[in-house]
Structure formats: structure tokens, C-alpha cells
């Protein structure tokens, strides 16, 4: 039992350690970043960066890479504001649904044609940004009846409505990825594509679900941010992709597919939230936050890499030797 737990928890040891260390360091540096307030701030991070990272992680697990998430979030935010007359739930639902549909289409194209998603989504990244400008009329737009957003501004102890929604999505995503056939097929397709196909896993369906999830999560993130702020601007979220990717990598999601869980994403998001929120509350410049994030990323990945190198090699190292460097999304 203990052995099983140890083996289960191994992939989380490093991100957990990183989280604890950064949290301690930051709370020493920033006296206001302690206790309930700090937990609240960290959970807030889940509703924007967290959701985007979650979606991105699904594509990474499937052995793909969806670069279009930042633009998708911006477009969804604009759609949310444009449809705000349908009410709070209505506009969030519409925007999220648009994202799911777009992502599914993108997944079908990538799955059917078998092209590299890294290459394809750089096109949609630019294209969606263009659509965002067009839909918003090239300027910031606001929710006229901003009273509808009031429920989102409430705070319940360490939670806000949007962080509750985000956590709900995280838990649902975790259940889906861990306990359903479709979720496990995403792992199979990402972990060993040929083997999975030989076993009868349908590639197109699996990729469609993965990309629908990544676009859907990004859209929900954009929609929540737009309703909470009461507005959307077409130039928003251009660094969300890299932040989301950094969160995934910090948490231990592999760029080579098939590895990592929702818990890994949660750790990564929490680490990033601690750094960003903690340092911002200190009045640290945005650029220093970036510097710290970059250094942290390099450190964590470096430790993981070295640990992997130093660990004794098991039999089957032979199969590893010639392993190609096929990275998520880069293959055909």
C-alpha cells in the first residue's frame, strides 16, 4: 500500500516541492501574501491561466500542442461581451460553446490530415486574433448591463465564483481523463500512437476531443475573465499561451505526450500563481516576475532532467536509445 502510494506520488514530488519552496520564499518576501488572502489569490489564478493550462495539457497529453489557446480566449471574451444580452450564464455558455466547436473542427482537420499541430495552430493563432479584432470592431467593448456580472464579484472565504467554476472544471477534467474511456484514449494516443491505433483507438475522435477541450477551456477562461472584468479588448491575452505552457511544464506535463495528470497542471498553475500574485502584491515589476518565472522553469525542468539521467536505467533502455525526438505536435 505504502509502496503503491509512493509510486503514485512520485510524479508529483518535484512540483510539490517547488510549490512549497516558492510559497515559503514569496510569503517571506511579501508580508501581505499570507494566510487566507494568499490562498484566495492563488485559486484566482486557476480561472484564467489555470483553465488555459488545463486545456493545453490535454493536447500535450495527446502528443499535440495547441498554440491557438491565447487567441481563442481573446475571441471568446469578445463573443461573451457581444452576447451579454443573453444574461450571465447565457453569454458564458455561448462563448464556451463556440470555442468547443472551433476546437473540435481544428481537431478533425489535424486528425484527418495527420499534420503537425504545432505547425497548423500557428496559423489559427494568427487567424483567431484577426477575427477577434474584427468582431470587436477593433476596440475594447464593454458589457452594457454590467449588473449581470455581480454574482462573479462575490467572495466566499477562499473562493470566488470563477475560481469555483475553474476548480469544478479541473475536477471534471481529472475525472474525465482518469476514469473514462475517451480520457484514457487521449493518454494512449499521446503515449504510443501506433500501438494505440493498432489496439483500435480512433485517432480522429481522440484528437477532436482533445482540441475541443483545449479550445473549450481557453474559451471558458476568456469568458469568465470578460464577465468578471465587464469588458473585452481585442489585444488581450497575447502572452497567455506562454504562461499556460509554462504552468504545464512547471507542473510536470511532458512535451513528449502521454504523461502527466490534472494534478500536475494544478501544481504548475499554483506555482505560477504564487509567483505572479505574490510578487505583484509586493509591487515587483512585471518584468522581474517574468525573470523569476523563466529561472524557475529552467530550474524545475533541469532538476527533473538530471534526476531522470542519474536514475539507474532499467532493462529496456535499449528501446530508449534510438528513440526519436518526436515532440508533441511536431510529428505527422
Amino acid at each position, binding site marked *: 500500500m505504502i509502496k503503491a502510494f509512493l509510486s503514485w506520488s512520485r510524479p508529483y514530488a518535484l512540483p510539490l516541492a517547488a510549490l512549497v519552496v516558492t510559497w515559503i520564499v514569496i510569503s517571506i518576501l511579501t508580508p*501581505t501574501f499570507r494566510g487566507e488572502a494568499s490562498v484566495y*489569490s492563488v485559486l484566482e489564478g486557476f480561472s*484564467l491561466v489555470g483553465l488555459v493550462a488545463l486545456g493545453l495539457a490535454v493536447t500535450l497529453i495527446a502528443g499535440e500542442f495547441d498554440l491557438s489557446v491565447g487567441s481563442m480566449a481573446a475571441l471568446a471574451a469578445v463573443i461573451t461581451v457581444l452576447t451579454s444580452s443573453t444574461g450571465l450564464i447565457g453569454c458564458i455558455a455561448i462563448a464556451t460553446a463556440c470555442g468547443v466547436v472551433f476546437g473540435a473542427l481544428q481537431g478533425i482537420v489535424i486528425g484527418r490530415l495527420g499534420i503537425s499541430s504545432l505547425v497548423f495552430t500557428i496559423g489559427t493563432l494568427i487567424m483567431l486574433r484577426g477575427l477577434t479584432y474584427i468582431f*470587436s470592431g477593433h476596440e*475594447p467593448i464593454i458589457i452594457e448591463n454590467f449588473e449581470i456580472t455581480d454574482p462573479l464579484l462575490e*467572495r466566499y472565504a477562499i473562493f470566488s465564483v470563477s475560481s469555483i467554476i475553474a476548480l469544478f472544471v479541473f475536477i471534471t477534467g481529472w475525472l474525465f481523463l482518469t476514469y473514462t474511456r475517451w480520457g484514457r484514449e487521449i493518454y494512449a494516443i499521446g503515449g504510443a500512437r501506433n500501438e494505440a491505433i493498432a489496439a483500435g483507438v480512433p485517432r480522429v475522435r481522440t484528437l477532436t476531443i482533445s482540441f475541443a477541450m483545449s479550445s473549450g477551456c481557453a474559451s471558458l477562461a476568456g469568458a469568465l475573465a470578460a464577465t468578471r472584468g465587464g469588458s473585452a479588448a481585442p*489585444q488581450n491575452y497575447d502572452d497567455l499561451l506562454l504562461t499556460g505552457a509554462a504552468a504545464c511544464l512547471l507542473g510536470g506535463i511532458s512535451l513528449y505526450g502521454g504523461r502527466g495528470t490534472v494534478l500536475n497542471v494544478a501544481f504548475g498553475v499554483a506555482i505560477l500563481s504564487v509567483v505572479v500574485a505574490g510578487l505583484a502584491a509586493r*509591487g515587483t515589476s512585471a518584468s522581474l516576475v517574468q525573470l523569476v518565472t523563466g529561472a524557475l522553469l529552467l530550474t524545475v525542468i533541469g532538476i527533473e532532467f538530471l534526476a531522470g539521467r542519474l536514475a539507474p536505467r532499467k532493462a529496456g533502455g535499449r528501446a530508449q536509445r534510438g528513440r526519436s525526438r518526436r515532440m508533441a505536435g511536431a510529428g505527422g
Partner: protein
Amino acid sequence: AEGTGKVEGDGKDLVMFTITASNVYGANQIKGAEAEAKKLGYKLTVYQNNFSQPEQDQQVQQLIASGIKPAAIIFWPWVADAAINDARLLAKLAPVIQLTQEPNEKSWPFVQAYSGANQILIGETLGRTMLKAREAAKAAGMKFKSDNGKLLVFQHPAGEKTGTERMKGFMAVTKDAPFDIIHTEFGANSPESGYEIGSQVIPKFKGQFDFLFVSNQQAANGIIRALKDNGIAPGKDVYIVSGDCSGSLEAVKNGETFGTGIQPAAVEGALAVRTAAKFIANGKIEGDVIQMEVEAGAPAITNAPPAKLNYMPHAPAIGADGVAATKIWGYNADEICAS
């Protein structure tokens, strides 16, 4: 509310929301605010966003969560029209002094006072500068493409309110002899973007314009390069006025840019802290507008309450002499614009 009766802070908290210090304007503004807060004895915490409204939204949530009760909040909403919810939330916490972007009718109920640039006034000064450019061009014997001269406009990225407000002021003072605006292009706010757009638009309108109105001096520097690429000599074949001076001022000094507006960010930051301090002291505002005049040294702070709109000083700078003569609250032109 009751005022404390004095502008000194005695270590009270002030919180400021503004843009990142990676940007020259943000950096100067923060510098000015920090210096003034130190002088008055306030503890100033600055939340910087990387030109992102959602990021600012999150920071507002964070401040509220942190449980800090600042004496006042200085708030630059990155997208003014889009930050109503932030203003609402902040207003519950402390008096809000809005900065740089004037509140609109929806956000006024949550804001105590505005402190910062007067974009319409800036637009007016720029309009007047442009009229002077026309006189200078005439005097230099330039032949215009139409009676009042044809104007090409390079604006901030689409949707930035600064540009549209300034344009209002600009149009108002030039309405008696308006320039013929042949084209407005959006997206210029840095040398690179100015050059990228200029280098494509200028060949298209080559020989069809006499004047250029550019968002800021950085962008103008890019456009000047595009003009030269196309064999057009700025300051001779065409005259340029730039909206504000952030950027290297070489081109103003050597006459390639006819004139620019001096918008001292450091003064804006300092003024915002003063406005907040005055509000804390009095607990109320009095009157509609205080327009600060251009003064070489910083005037002493008074105990009087702030007005609803507290405008920082603003002056045009024309030519090398104009740049050299500029001195506002102790800062010279280069300090205000570039460093």
C-alpha cells in the same frame, strides 16, 4: 467622509495600479509617484500590468483578498471603458483617484477624482502646433497639395482612447482652417510599428500629403525612417507633429519633427499622489477643474481639497530651442521623454 486634516501620510498605505515599468511612460510615472509618496510619508505599493486588462482585473481581486485597507487607491484602468467592475470593487475598499484615463459616465459614481493628463487639452495644443507648422511651411515656401494642406494621420492601435480624445481637441482648434485628412492609419506606437506601417502606407500616398500627425515621437521616429526611404525629407517636403514626446528627441532637435507634446509622466505620477493626499486630508472634492500650469519647479503642495478633474501641466515643444527650454517640475525634456 471626514478628512484627516493633513496631507502627510504618516506611513499610511497607498496603492497604485498602472502599466508595467518596462514601458518608458509607466516607468516614469511610477518614479514620480514613488518620489512624491516618500516625500509625503505614504507607503506606496504599485501593481503593474503588462498592458493587459484581465491581468489588472486579477490584481484588483488580489488587493481585495489581501485584506489591506489603503487610505486611497490611484487607479489607471488599462482599458478605461473596460474596467468598470474594477472601479466598483475598488470603490468599496477606499477612495479611488483615477489616473491617465478619464472616467466615463458609468465609472464616475465609483471614482472620487481624476488626476492626470487632459487629452483634449493635449489635442488642442497639438492642433495649435500643427497650425504653427503650417505657417512655418508657408514661410519656407512650401506648396500645399490643397489650400489648407493635406494631412496623413498615424494613430495609436485601434481602440486606444488617447488617440481619439486628442483628435477631438485637435479638430476643435483647427476647425476654422481644417486640414484635409486624406487617410488615417492605426497601430503606430513604437518605432518598429511606425516604420512597418509607414513604409507601406507612404509609398501609396507619396506626393499627396503635406503634413503628418503621429501618435507619439517613438512612432514618428519610425515614420521618419519610412519617409526618408521614399526620398521624402521630413521638415522640408513634409511637416510632422507628434502627439507626445515619449521617444528619442533627436528628430525634434534637428527639425525633422516640427513639434511634439510634452506629457510628463513623472509629474502625472506625482500629481496623482498629491491628489490622493489632498483627498485623504479633506475627505471631499471641491470644484470641477484644476489645470496645473507649466512650472519649472514643483509647486508646494497645499491643504486645499482636490477638484473633480485635476489636470497635469502640458506644453508643446517646437524645435531644438523648444526642447532645450522645456522644464516642468524640475524635469527637463530628455528626462520626461526618454529616460
